[in-house]
């Protein structure tokens, strides 16, 4: 059994390599460029809408410090619902195709963006904010010139987490007749064509890695001078205690 399986694995690797080198897999509707574009389109649109919703909300809550615990609790609750379940819930309303996956992906991306924006802003040194206020800055100036620059790495980390999750989860669209790289996985599974299935999985993993690296790079660029590379406070960090509570 052992050597036999080893031979099978080698065969499979050969098949996957053959899949990638077959020119037919690089052209047309089902070619890698088109599927990649579809995948980026769906992921990008989901990220855009999620960012438009979650970032202003997170910044507002983080700046004012009001309703933070509630927002974080609701956001975390939302993250407990599997995207696959949401996909089937939205299906009757949005119909087949990427349209049903889109709202599920938006809901997937909102929690990390919101929670990190909030946590990042609350983590900004209060003395810094008070100094700005003492200089006569308006609340908007405080947010944009003091809090956001200081909190940027954490905020971007939220975007990174959301983007990686969205890119990986956008494969679900294929289950409801959508496009994207998930097509290879769903079709490969249905046809029992392992080469296609594995090639699809590799492409999705590579894309997720590229997205992750791009956002990590952006995170580094947003560090303030003299600031150490902060541990990416991931997304689940409890909201920092408010100073001067008593």
């Amino acid at each position, binding site marked *: 059994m052992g050597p036999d399986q080893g031979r099978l694995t080698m065969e499979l690797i050969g098949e996957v390599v053959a899949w990638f080198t077959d020119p037919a897999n690089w052209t047309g509707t089902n070619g890698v460029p088109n599927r990649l574009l579809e995948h*980026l*389109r769906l992921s990008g649109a989901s*990220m855009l809408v999620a960012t438009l919703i979650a970032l202003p909300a997170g910044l507002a809550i983080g700046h004012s410090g009001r309703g933070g615990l509630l927002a974080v609790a609701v956001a975390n609750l939302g993250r407990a619902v599997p995207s696959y379940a949401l996909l089937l819930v939205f299906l009757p309303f949005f*119909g087949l195709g990427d349209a049903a996956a889109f709202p599920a992906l938006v809901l997937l991306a909102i929690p990390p963006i919101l929670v990190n924006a909030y946590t990042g802003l609350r983590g900004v040194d209060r003395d810094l904010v008070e100094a700005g206020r003492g200089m006569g800055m308006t609340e908007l100036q405080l947010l944009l010139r003091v809090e956001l620059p200081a909190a940027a790495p954490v905020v971007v980390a939220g975007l990174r987490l959301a983007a990686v999750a969205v890119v990986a989860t956008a494969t679900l669209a294929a*289950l409801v007749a959508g496009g994207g790289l998930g*097509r290879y996985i769903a079709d490969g599974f249905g046809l029992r064509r392992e080469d296609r299935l594995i090639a699809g999985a590799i492409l999705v993993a590579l894309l997720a890695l590229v997205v992750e690296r791009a956002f990590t790079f*952006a995170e580094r660029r*947003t560090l303030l001078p003299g600031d150490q590379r902060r541990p990416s406070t991931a997304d689940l960090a409890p909201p920092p205690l408010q100073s001067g509570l008593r």
Partner: protein
Amino acid sequence: MRLFRTVALGATSLALALSACTSGGGSTSGPTTGASTSPSTPPSSEPSGSAGAEPSGSGTAGGPTIASTLVLAGPPECPERPFCLLGLQDTYGLQFKEFRPTDAGGPITVEALKGGDAQVGLLFTSDPAIETNDFVLLEDDKGLQLADNIIPVVRQEILDANPGVADVLNAVMERLTQDELTKLNTAVTVDARDVAEVATEWIEAQNFDAASAGIEGEITVGSTNFYEQEILGEIFAQMLEANGATVERKFQLGNREVVFPALQEGEIDVLAEYAATALEFVNEGAGEATADAADTASILRERLAESDLTALEPAEATDQNGFVVTRETADQYGLSKLSDLAKPAP
């Protein structure tokens, strides 16, 4: 300075996403009632079904066929399978407007039909969804699918001792139409009713002749983990009991790979099977099954005889690939069988 970089990053991702939106465009069409609940326009994706894609197929008469105006939904492997799209093309000469990959006879295909994203869908012929959604199962009038008619498989020893067993079970097969089987499945899976209760009710409704078979001794009825086979097993059991047998039920035994050996070894005596699938299981995929239930059943009997088993008469009811349309589509185009789809479009 730093802010600029943040903004630049934001702008880049915005540009990426915006390009996505502009290339999307149209809102989701379709008569789904809840569509208005989405404030934002979902990104369109695949060439949507309602877009002006020109029908690729034309009928033998030259003009477009009904099929060429309809969208087919089925599992992703359908376009490469002889019992799915390939067979529809070769056997029926059907070319659909579009194929949309959904699932293998599951909820996504059902939703696609209900929402109007597809007009023809591949389900299993005894799927309760056909009953609950008032779908119309198109008759496979050119015999594309292998005959997976319900058929009782029985140990020869039992029949030799009690020939009445064959009469009792064949009487059940005679009444088991496609409609009846689908209703039984619906009662148990959708209405969540007790299997024994559903079986009793069905038997009463059939008004079988009064118990006369005079069966003696013990008979063990088996079933796989599949609800449909369990319902049929329960009906067999109650019918045999009513005719004098002492019945032991061994349901939920696992899959065919477990249940068939149990039958051969005499652990169970009676099992509700599917003619074509059972035949191809026994002959190890020799490809002897056909679309004809009687032919398939007789070959099955020959193959089973080698292990002292036999099969009785096949029912009309099947559980196999079935193409369905909504009642609305059926009425609109006058569809009742698959070959109707090849008629010229109105």
